[in-house]
């Protein structure tokens, strides 16, 4: 586990908003030299606090008007291997994220589609036919906010 001080937290907050800011611009903002800022960012990356970058795309402008979260229960637990299910579900291009969860469902999927008929096609042809897929619950995403978290 990596320990953070106040400046590390401020750097993480700033980079989560905009990862393209240079070390010198960030340094000026937080009263650090460019090399000192660069060293801190390297440490955050190497310590695993920063796991990568995400490009924020406007899905709607790209023709993907519908995002649906699916809760999936496996029907024949024990008979279908989790690995087979996970491999098959991860290979579907419209499936953006797959999370293994405990509770009401076994898996939680984020699925993107052009519109509702397109979503229905993905659901019927690709999701319902997955090995072991049982009960499915769908919730259509209306709005989404990512918050900075406890930094």
């Amino acid at each position, binding site marked *: 586990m990596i320990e953070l001080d106040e400046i590390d937290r401020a750097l993480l907050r700033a980079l989560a908003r905009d990862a393209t800011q240079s070390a010198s611009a960030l340094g000026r903002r937080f009263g650090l030299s460019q090399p000192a800022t660069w060293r801190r960012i390297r440490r955050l990356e190497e310590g695993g606090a920063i796991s990568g970058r995400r490009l924020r795309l406007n899905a709607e402008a790209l023709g993907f008007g519908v995002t649906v979260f699916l809760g999936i229960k496996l029907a024949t637990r024990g008979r279908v291997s989790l690995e087979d299910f996970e491999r098959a579900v991860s290979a579907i291009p419209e499936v*953006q*994220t797959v999370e293994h969860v405990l509770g009401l469902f076994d898996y939680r999927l984020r699925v993107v589609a052009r519109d509702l008929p397109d979503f229905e096609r993905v659901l019927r042809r690709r999701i319902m036919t997955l090995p072991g897929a049982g009960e499915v619950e769908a919730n259509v995403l209306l709005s989404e906010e990512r918050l900075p978290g406890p930094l």
Partner: protein
Amino acid sequence: MLDDLDRRILRYWQAEPSLSPGELAERCNITSGKAARRIARLQDQGIVQGSGVVIDWAALGYALEVSLRVTLDKTQANAFDIFMAAARQVPEVIELQTFLGRVDLRLSIIARDMGHYQQIYRSRILTLPHIAEIEALMHVARIKTQEGLPL
């Protein structure tokens, strides 16, 4: 509208968001001038909204992530707005989504351990206004996390 080259640029870029415009030009086999113009246009049109680093909360000591699926008491006017404004004030809430479906909202919350989760749940979550029902899903593993669009 977008042509094949725009899509090619976006495909490479979303797969590796830290690529520079020069590197993107190289992947797409075009001049860096042409890549720069296309990138600028994608940004001007609001298709590319920016990029941010992804924080690995587990590396910062937040070992647990829980999805709370919330149903609200909709007899109360403005229940959504009031609930959401209050939920934004809880630092451990990192995502806030609203849905059309069986559940109204979902909160993603992170915690250091079970004791910490219990404390947040009792003191900050159950006290949020207008909750009719809550279900929890505990994250076990992330199988697919790219969140790329199938361009």
